[in-house]
């Protein structure tokens, strides 16, 4: 029996542990791997060459935007470490080459336009720039070819047994770099094609001269001045010609020359807050003058420009929490003017405008950093826009945007009924906006915490009632901003809730039960059984019967021995079932008293009587009695076993 129970218990435990093992085995529905243990693999060598080929091809095809995109991706290519440096060099040459081709295109376009405008001197200057750019592209193409050869060599493209794919890839790369030569040649021919007519035109056309005078050498921005002068050609005036007055190279006014070739025009100085500006008068031939006269520009005149300066003082924090507002303060003043007027101020984080407002002096403004802003350092710019004669100004400071973390301070053990005093600290400890809403939630109960002096939020929360005796619950803290619905940041803490009320009730219910059960387990007193009396028909054994265990069963003959053996067997069964040992000083009858039999009473009584007759009387025991005794013992044993199970 014992062995069976032990075996069953062991099997049950093993099955439970096996079940747990299967519970912990992760599901494998989706195919993905742990990226930290992913094995590094390098691509086929030919792919590296093909990527370099793509760069050269895009440049040759004048798809410079695409070329830039491919160049930008190169650092992300998986290449062997020994190749990284040379591939970076190739990338750099490619990038410089793209810049040079872009510059060439722009310069030659401008030279062509200037020539068509008759502005031959300027066109000539642009063509000189083009020559320099062409020289640079030639050098870069040679460097690029060299880098490509080096990469191919390191990849083994020139080896005797190089794979066909690798040699094919290098051939494609080589062809692509050769086409760069063609591209450069195209630009060179274009440049030459512009030089010849420029020189020819310059020799055939009539020169013109433009003069310029200004009525003032110093002017306030926004004010106007008088520009005057004349336009002539080889000393003869050119009447009714249209001239353009340029301020810092930009057209500011147009004027027509009078019959004597002179002109006069009011020119407004733009609102540009620089110390001086350059004014020129420009003549460009049109209509019948095209092909006759050369364009010309007057000598530049410098005019000193003045304006009202703006001063800006700012007070901004070094750190801020994303999702929560920060306060920027300061003052906009003008040293030259006591009353600067209403000015527009913008607060920018990087390029994003956080706030825009008006001020007439001091200001203190909230600006909210979007919750989606990644943590990091950003330039925080406070910019005051220019307004009329007042210049603009900006101040910049580095702001570290941080991810706030909440720390919940509360007791580990909470008792029901009761309340908990909790505090939430937002870290890092920087200026926390006073209007941030911090909530604390436990189960169904929520409370809003109040800001305290020490930059924490504290409050009291009632522990919600529940019927759980003891168990973990989540104490959740969250921060909300006024501009954003819902919690911005949350933190939780697990606390153990002990329900004293429920524990008391359950204890009260179970206490009497426990006491009663304990009492029953200890056994009946002897008097109970004695008062019940013996069943009828059973002879009462003598009280002075000596203890059984001192007797030797061998002297009673076979039948007697069998009866005593049966009695011992039954007594042992009772002793195990009732946890009542057979003591040496006990008589048979005393043993009945302490055994507190609930079942098989009659059988054991009869057996006891038989055993006592065998021990103490001169009665001759026959076989039937012995058999009867053994049957009684078996019966008692079975009853005891049934009672135990």
């Amino acid at each position, binding site marked *: 029996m*014992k062995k069976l*129970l032990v075996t069953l*218990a062991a099997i*049950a*435990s093993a099955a*439970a542990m096996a079940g*747990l093992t*299967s*519970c*912990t*085995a*992760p*599901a*494998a*529905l*989706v*195919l*993905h*791997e*742990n*990226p*930290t243990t*992913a*094995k*590094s*693999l390098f*691509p*086929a060598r030919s*792919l590296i060459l093909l*990527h370099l080929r*793509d760069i050269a091809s895009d440049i040759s095809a004048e798809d410079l935007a695409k070329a830039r*995109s491919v160049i930008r*991706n190169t650092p*992300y*290519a*998986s290449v062997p470490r020994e190749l990284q440096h040379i591939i970076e060099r190739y990338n750099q040459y490619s990038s410089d080459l793209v810049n040079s081709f872009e510059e060439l295109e722009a310069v030659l376009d401008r030279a062509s336009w200037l020539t068509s405008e008759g502005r031959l001197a300027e066109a000539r200057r642009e063509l000189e720039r083009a020559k320099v750019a062409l020289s640079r592209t030639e050098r870069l193409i040679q460097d690029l070819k060299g880098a490509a050869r080096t990469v191919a060599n390191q990849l083994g493209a020139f080896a005797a047994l190089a794979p066909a794919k690798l040699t094919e890839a290098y051939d494609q790369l080589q062809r692509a770099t050769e086409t760069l030569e063609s591209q450069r040649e195209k630009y060179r021919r274009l440049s030459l094609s512009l030089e010849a007519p420029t020189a020819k035109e310059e020799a055939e056309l009539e020169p013109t001269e433009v003069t310029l005078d200004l009525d003032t050498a110093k002017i306030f921005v926004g004010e106007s001045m008088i520009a005057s002068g004349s336009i002539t050609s080889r000393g003869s005036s050119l009447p009714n010609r249209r001239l353009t007055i340029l301020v810092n190279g930009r057209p500011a006014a147009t004027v027509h020359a009078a019959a004597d070739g002179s002109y006069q025009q009011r020119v407004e100085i733009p609102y540009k807050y620089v110390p001086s500006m350059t004014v020129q008068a420009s003549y460009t031939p049109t209509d019948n003058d095209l092909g006759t006269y050369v364009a010309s520009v007057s000598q530049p005149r410098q005019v000193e420009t003045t304006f009202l300066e703006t001063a800006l003082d700012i007070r901004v924090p070094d750190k801020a929490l994303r999702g929560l507002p920060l306060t920027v303060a300061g003052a906009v003043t003008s040293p030259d003017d006591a009353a600067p007027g209403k000015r527009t101020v913008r607060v920018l984080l990087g390029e994003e405008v956080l706030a825009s407002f008006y001020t007439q002096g001091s200001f203190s403004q909230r600006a909210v950093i*979007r919750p*989606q802003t*990644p943590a990091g350092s950003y330039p925080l710019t406070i910019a005051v826009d220019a307004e009329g004669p007042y210049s603009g100004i900006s101040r910049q400071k580095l702001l570290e945007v941080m991810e706030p973390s909440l720390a919940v301070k509360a007791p580990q053990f909470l008792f029901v009924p009761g309340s908990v005093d909790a505090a939430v600290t937002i870290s890092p400890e920087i200026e926390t906006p006073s209007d941030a809403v911090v909530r604390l939630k436990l189960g169904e109960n929520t409370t809003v915490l109040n800001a305290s002096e020490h930059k924490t939020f504290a409050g009291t929360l009632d522990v919600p009632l*529940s*019927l*759980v005796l003891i168990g973990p619950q989540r104490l959740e803290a969250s921060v909300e901003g006024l501009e*954003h619905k*819902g*919690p*911005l*940041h949350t933190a939780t803490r697990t606390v153990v809730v002990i329900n004293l009320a*429920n524990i008391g009730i*359950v204890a009260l*219910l*179970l206490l009497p*039960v*426990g006491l*009663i*059960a304990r009492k*029953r*387990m200890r056994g009946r007193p002897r008097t109970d059984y004695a008062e019940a009396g013996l069943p009828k028909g059973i002879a009462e054994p003598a009280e002075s019967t000596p203890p059984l265990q001192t007797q030797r069963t061998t002297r009673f003959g076979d039948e007697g021995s069998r009866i005593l053996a049966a009695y011992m067997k039954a007594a042992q069964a009772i002793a195990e*079932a009732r946890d009542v040992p057979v003591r040496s000083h006990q008589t048979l009858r005393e043993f009945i008293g302490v055994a507190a039999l*609930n*079942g098989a009473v009659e059988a054991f009584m009869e057996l006891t009587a038989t055993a006592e007759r065998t021990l103490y009387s001169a009665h001759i025991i026959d076989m039937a009695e012995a058999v009867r005794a053994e049957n009684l013992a078996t019966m008692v044993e079975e009853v005891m076993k049934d009672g135990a199970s």
Partner: protein
Amino acid sequence: MELRRRLIMLPPITIILLALIVWFYPSSADFRLDNPGWNGLEKFVAEFNASPATHLQRSSLPPGRTALVVVPLEKFTEPELLQLKDYVSSGGMLAVFDDYGNGNQLLDYLGLEARFTGRPLLDPLFNHKSEWLPRIMDLPAIRVARGVESVVLNHPSSLAGVSRDEVLARSSAFSFLDLDGDGAPGETEPTGPLPVLARVMIGKGSVVLMADPSILINGMIDIGDNRAFLRNVLDIGGAGARVFVDESHHGKAPLDEAKKALAVTHGALSAPLGMMGLVGTVLTLSLRPIWQRKGERVG
């Protein structure tokens, strides 16, 4: 007798011990919100303040300024499909992250032409350590590319049936779909660029299709610019949109089912009827010897 008592106590003690282990042992199943391992979503939940949407109940999914993330490892039921359609039509943003699962069932129900190809996308040149972790650098949409230079995927697939205007991210020209499973580009296998992220408008809302759910897991969220990329994708539903994650189609692991059962049991026992039943059972068992004794006396 002593041994018998101990043996009788062994099964309930074992059960309680197992229950405690199951309760506290961390989940290790793929895409579980409480799994802190490399394949769980614990970091995603913390970073984006995501809430579970265990049951696709319309009442718990306010369509305005919300994003519902779905990883359909299991099929949807008809009522669930209807609820998802209503959610999108009412203005919600449904983000379907799938590669080899059941995303196409949902797309078919929504009446879209877009499909997940269900084939592995490999990139032998632009990748993170392995061709199975391709790197995506082609992000034509500014709203997705803000602050993102490259995104790393993990055994992704690709999209088909999306128009050029709908594509938000593409793989490199060196990528390919491994149709025959040999890990090498074949002559008949489609090569890149291939779309991996797209957005389709339905009614007042939109459906965002991402051909790799593994970008959400803890092990991937810190690689490259994945975090900023995910932020941009979820912001498609509106800046600061509340994020919900549907867990009910992530597959069922035995440990998680056991945790769920324990949680249900805990909840039931916490309820008034449950607590009364428990107390009643304890009383019955405790008083059994007395009742048995009374029964014998009467007999």
